[in-house]
């Protein structure tokens, strides 16, 4: 058993030098794949996720068709080399659960009633996992949906807040997740002020929970700004290239 590392240093900074309310370096690129109708690559620190959207398109088998709206199909999946120990390619129970909560978060924003009898497929591949993969994946998926030209109420921006040595910290990484006391992933449609994903893996007092949610919101607003920048960069700066 490895000794618990120092997560919060004496000066209040975190193991990687960040302040408690600081995001990791974020990279977003839209339209990175040729075949997909929309795609995006998003990195939060070493966490690297690629998302692709296919659709709206026909459904096979037909009997799964919904008469009044588009079906959303969503898969969150980890590459075998994305984790410290090699991950078996078969979908784990964790991947099944995360595919569901990510899908539900996206259902809230897509205008599915515009495309009855079709499917919109969202594929999220975690290429490197260093904490916050579901929130990074959701952030990437909403960019990929935008890239595919699918009408949405708002983008979805997401981040995980953690509690580490009693301190609430923004955008926890794997080390903080492993040795910390709580990991709370949050996703929002920021302009609409709606929380579309909320989970808690850990222990918080009701007061801590309130503060954690505020902190998440702060991070989400910054991520949202970066998302809009990334889309602008692709679509508006195009003529300048």
């Amino acid at each position, binding site marked *: *058993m490895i000794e618990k590392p120092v997560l919060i240093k004496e000066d209040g900074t975190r193991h990687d030098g960040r302040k408690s309310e600081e995001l990791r370096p974020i990279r977003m690129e839209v339209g990175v794949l040729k075949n997909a109708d929309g795609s995006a690559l998003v990195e939060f620190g070493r966490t690297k996720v690629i998302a692709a959207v296919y659709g709206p398109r026909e459904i096979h088998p037909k009997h*799964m068709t*919904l008469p009044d*709206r588009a*079906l*959303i*199909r*969503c*898969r969150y999946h980890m590459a075998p080399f994305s984790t410290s120990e090699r991950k078996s390619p078969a979908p784990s*129970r*964790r991947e*099944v*659960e995360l*595919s*569901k*909560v*990510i*899908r*539900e978060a996206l*259902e*809230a924003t897509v205008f*599915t009633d515009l495309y009855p009898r079709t499917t919109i497929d969202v594929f999220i591949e975690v290429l490197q996992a260093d904490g916050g993969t579901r929130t990074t994946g959701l952030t990437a998926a909403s960019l990929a949906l935008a890239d595919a030209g699918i009408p949405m109420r708002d983008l979805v921006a997401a981040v995980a807040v953690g509690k580490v040595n009693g301190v609430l910290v923004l955008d926890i990484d794997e080390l903080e997740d492993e040795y910390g006391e*709580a990991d*709370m992933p949050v996703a*929002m*449609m920021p302009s*609409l*002020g*709606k*929380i*579309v*994903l*909320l*989970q*808690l*893996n*850990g*222990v*918080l*007092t*009701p007061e801590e*929970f*309130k503060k954690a*949610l505020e902190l998440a*919101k702060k991070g989400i607003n910054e991520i949202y700004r970066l998302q809009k920048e990334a889309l602008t960069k692709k679509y508006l700066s195009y003529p300048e290239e």
Partner: protein
Amino acid sequence: MSLTPVQTPIIPRLKKEKIVSLIKTGKRIDGRRLDEYRPITIQLNPIQKAEGSAAVKIGDTMAMVGVKLEVGIPYSDRPNEGVLQVHAEFVPLASPTFEPGPPDENAIETARVIDRSLREPRAIRLEDLAIIPGQKVWIVFNDIYLLDHDGNIIDASMLASMLALNVTKMPKIVSIEGDKVVIDKDSRGQKLPLNLNVVTVTIGKVDKYFIVDPSLEEESVLDAKITVAVDSLGRIVGLQKMGMEGFTEDEVDYVIELALKKAKELHSLLEKVLKNPEEASKSIV
């Protein structure tokens, strides 16, 4: 892959509209208040062959939990702790919409929410369940079996789990030679060591209204729901937002407050039952 679920069984549109319009006036189709649970019935130890078991009915939703203990190998990153395994099966007997086969995403989510809610506050003293540190530990299987589905599966499953764990008695260890541990399944001694109790409270959202413990009919009209796990110290030890809509921050605050209040009631019920098991336990299965 997770897919948009098809609404089944189909509840007639008129009935749905009635459920919603009632809720908007603060009433519910079965006469409950918005913040009221259905009647809860409990049976302790219906399965003598399990190390501990419980059946719980919330209204007509019926969940069983059997706890089994076996000797096994610890996780490599927790060599000195026992292992907790939570599984849930939604058998086709329980609902016309369930299919035989491996657990679907809903069963997996239920099991994982309960697993985390037990694990994070250290409800079970896993550190006391090592037999030969680093080599042999107790594996605690908490198997949830849903027998009748009338809504709010998670709260019923969590209650049954917590009760079953409370009445679990561990098999006696007969001998330890080298790394071979022999146990006697038929004689049980010590209670499973627990630190505290946990309950979950599930609250559904319909428009701007919130209902506790939604029934199956009510679930068909929900926009979304949140399950809040609360331990006996009043801490939030798990959260899971479900469903295809969002919550505002204010709504989340309201839900949390309501959940903390209802959790106290459930904790009282738990304590009452465990203090007077003979009296409180009814025959369910």
